[in-house]
């Protein structure tokens, strides 16, 4: 008879029984719902032995960390398992290499994280020398031999991480946990249209996704809609212009809510995206930045025909509220 070691207890299963059924039968209280692999309520973790057939539909990060759906896994395939605890993600040492102003309010933070797997566009938890911990998105697509990773940080007056970064000097020790999230380029459909909608430092992951797609030979259209409430909130415009000049399949629309300068459009980036691409049935969508914009983009792009499976978002929720 197969057995599953669960949190120190040896659970005996019947032949052919699922992990979930065995646990429930032995009175182990684990969450569950449809018991058909859809609702994802019975997520557990088996670092070395998560059966791929029980990982369908899971977030990349969850699957990479050994997450699996207990209702879809046969007990004989899973010698031991635990509850899924997000703190299992690996932590990497990160040295501050450089910081530089990209605008009056946005700081480029460059860290050397040699161990970090390549993860352009996804986010990590950054812990500073003072112990403050906040999520930030990876802005670079290239990860060179020294493992240099860039972040774009909007400085919040009085913000804990903002202050820590203002004080920090090259050589200071940070650490990084992750990566998390689904905002990354997925090769396999090189001709598909990619739509990137963001505001503020939401540009960081979108820039990483765009440059990653281009470096992997993406030939489909890449449409970037980037906005801020006013022109002062914008940054990185030269880099975007450069990218558009080098790659004819990439176009950038820069939007502001008020007082547009030359070459900028009035209105929200989402509104402009929906006008430019009314039918999104074959479009892969990414949206990052202000939570209200990102949530609206997720919904409106879905209603405009984008498949739920091809909409990837990270709302930059302030700490404590997410």
């Amino acid at each position: 008879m197969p057995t599953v070691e669960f949190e120190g207890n040896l659970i005996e299963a019947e032949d052919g029984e699922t992990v979930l059924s065995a646990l429930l039968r032995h009175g182990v209280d684990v969450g569950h719902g449809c018991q058909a692999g859809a609702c994802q309520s019975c997520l557990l973790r088996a670092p070395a032995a998560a059966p791929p057939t029980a990982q369908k539909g899971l977030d990349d990060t969850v699957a990479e960390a050994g997450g699996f759906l207990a209702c879809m896994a046969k007990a004989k395939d899973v010698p031991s398992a635990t509850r899924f605890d997000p703190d299992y993600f690996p932590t990497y040492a990160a040295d501050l290499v450089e910081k530089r102003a990209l605008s009056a309010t946005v700081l480029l933070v460059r860290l050397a994280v040699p161990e970090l797997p390549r993860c352009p566009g996804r986010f990590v938890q950054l812990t500073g020398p003072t112990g403050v911990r906040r999520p930030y998105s990876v802005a670079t697509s290239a990860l060179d031999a020294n493992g240099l990773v860039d972040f774009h940080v909007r400085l919040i007056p009085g913000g804990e991480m903002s202050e820590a970064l203002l004080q920090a000097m090259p050589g200071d020790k940070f650490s990084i946990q992750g990566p998390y999230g689904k905002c990354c380029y997925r090769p396999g459909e090189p001709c598909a249209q990619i739509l990137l909608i963001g505001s503020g430092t939401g540009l960081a992951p979108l820039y990483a996704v765009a440059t990653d797609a281009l470096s992997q030979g993406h030939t489909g259209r890449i449409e970037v809609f980037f906005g801020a409430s006013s022109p002062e909130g914008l940054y990185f415009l030269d880099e975007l212009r450069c990218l558009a000049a080098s790659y004819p399949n990439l176009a950038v629309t820069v939007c502001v809510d008020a007082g547009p300068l030359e070459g900028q459009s009035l209105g929200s980036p989402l509104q402009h995206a929906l006008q430019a691409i009314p039918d999104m049935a074959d479009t892969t969508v990414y949206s990052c930045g202000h939570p209200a914009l990102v949530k609206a983009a997720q919904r409106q792009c879905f209603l405009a025909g984008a498949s739920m499976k091809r909409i990837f978002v990270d709302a930059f929720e302030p700490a404590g509220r997410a």
Partner: protein
Amino acid sequence: MSSLYEKLGGEAAVDAAVDNFYRRVLKDDRICHYFDGIDMERQAAKQKSFLTMAFGGPNNYTARDMKEAHAHLDGLNDTHFDAVVENLGATLKDMGVADELIAEVAAVAETTRDAVLGRV
């Protein structure tokens, strides 16, 4: 005899239907307010549970589970239930499913009416 779920195309059919159905629900003024403000990805996963069940597929929901899953939806009544079944039918029609099978799906959904509306 293959089951209703197999005739519809099983898991692949659920995958094919979920976007269409969820989009209809979000656009339907009669019921969309019940789906506002819920995390869309979580919700899409639950829509798949719903479709799997309505297609007569593998699930272990009990009437009690159905009652509990919908207990927090204030004022849920037969009109809302009919709207969901109507959207389900329209989705299946879009997918080219025959009317007899659509009627079978509606009949499966019907068996959950009292539980979903908290009358059991």
